[in-house]
């Protein structure tokens, strides 16, 4: 119990004193998970839309694969990316192992099926007549897609929240492909694991508080965005 209180106090101290290391780790966490989420959205929402609107052979298989991917253990993704990026791997010559880029790629791959799954569910649950009505009113297919995305924003913002929440809280894969290198690939989650390993529970708890505060701020912003019709 004491550690929790000490952790909260320590977190406050670290934030107000402008500790450079903590600041850097926090910023890197936001940059890596933020970019990864954006990539997964850019790829995932169109795929979700397509899955929801088109009928084709093998659609059920693809949907089941997406649903399977939503539960894929991140550490498995970390292992796969490691095997690809290691010097001995097929992409070894790119020298991406133990870089933030490697972490972004891994996290984007982890968030991608989640975004696809949520987008698919959001679009598919719209009234099916809506699309036909928009088309009959003379909207172009692109306009229809855009209007459907706007109409499904509640579910789509949920996709953003779920994807971002998954990757910012992820630790195994980040440790594996990033290596938790100070000043380069250390993010909040891997820093927590390391501080626990060192027995610095108060610092670990402080970093955990920072992680929670950031995640909560982002989620609150997104929730407000989700609920406020005028903003979208």
């Amino acid at each position, binding site marked *: 119990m004491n550690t929790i209180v000490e952790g909260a106090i320590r977190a406050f101290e670290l934030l107000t004193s402008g500790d450079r290391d903590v*600041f*850097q780790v926090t*910023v890197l966490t*936001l*940059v890596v998970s*933020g970019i990864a989420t954006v990539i997964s959205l850019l790829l995932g929402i169109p795929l979700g839309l397509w899955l929801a609107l088109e009928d084709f052979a093998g659609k059920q298989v693809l949907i089941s694969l997406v649903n399977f991917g939503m539960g894929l253990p991140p550490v498995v993704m970390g292992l796969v990316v490691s095997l690809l990026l*290691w*010097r*001995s791997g097929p992409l*070894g010559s790119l*020298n991406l*192992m*133990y*870089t933030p880029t490697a972490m972004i790629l891994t996290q984007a791959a982890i968030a991608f099926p989640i975004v696809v799954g949520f987008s698919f569910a959001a679009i598919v649950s719209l009234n099916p007549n809506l699309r036909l009505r928009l088309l009959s009113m003379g909207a172009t297919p692109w306009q229809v897609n855009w209007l459907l995305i706007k109409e499904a924003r509640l579910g789509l913002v949920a996709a953003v929240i779920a994807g971002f929440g998954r990757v910012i809280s992820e630790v195994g894969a980040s440790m594996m492909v990033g*290596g*938790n*290198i*100070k*000043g*380069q690939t250390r993010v909040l989650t891997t820093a927590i694991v*390391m501080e*626990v*390993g*060192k*027995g610095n*529970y108060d610092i670990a708890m402080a970093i955990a508080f920072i992680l929670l505060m950031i995640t909560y*701020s*982002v989620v*609150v*912003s997104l929730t*407000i*965005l989700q*609920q*406020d019709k*005028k*903003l979208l």
Partner: protein
Amino acid sequence: MVAKIISTFLVSWLMVICTGCASNLVQQKPTTARSSTNKILIVAMTTSIEDSGLLNDLIAAIENKTGYQLKSISVGTGQALALAEKGEVDAVFVNSPLAEKKVLQDGTVMNRRLVMHNDFVIVGPAADKAQIRGKKDAVEAFSLIAKNQALFFSRGDDSGTNKLERDLWKQANIIPIGAWYQQTGAGMGHTLQVANDKKGYTLVDRATYLFQKKNLSLQILVEGDKKLLNLYHVMEVNPQKFPQVNKTAARAFSDFLLSGEGQRLIAAHGKNKFGQPLFFVDGGKTEKDYGF
């Protein structure tokens, strides 16, 4: 209305953070520009080097003196050597002489040099169920632990510490199996905490023990046996076997560890905080000086 105000506030807050990110990225640009292929140095190190805080004291000096950007991967010695065997790292800084000799002989690594040492200790709860306190022989202490079925925590991760521990069981002619023998499969710091929580015995390097002492009720029960000496060697991965390794970086790294400044930093580490050094430097010596 309220929602809008809050959202405006939060969005602007996020923008501040993002601006911070951007400026930070710009600041870091020199590092990124430097990080062309041959400016990166990847070293696999045994966990105790990070867990004891030594790595923190060394990073800046290593990067300044060698001019390379250090990527230090903190793993058990077993995994560190496995990474070397795949040519994934440029150098290794580890503590398991027997395993090291094997990769040295098969040409995976070269230029094995002794950097520093400290020692292992057997720690356990004050109650000391197995009555090992003060024993001078680590093997005898292990025999007593097994005989009394006293709870023992092994790292079980093929690290240098784990290798020594298995060797001690072997010397005691014991195959450790049973509810009393548990494997954490984790690093030294974590294993020490588990042993502390469950009031068991474990083998630990003195540096990690001292670094974590504030959280521990475990006591040092056995120390000083020559078998418990913990030697740390640096080795460079053989560029003839793995052309992709950065051999000049690896050499610069190991040269730094053995340089006057490197040895001074290592010797000074922990002196202020613990009143005693966590590592003793061995520049120029070999394990033969310790009778191996």
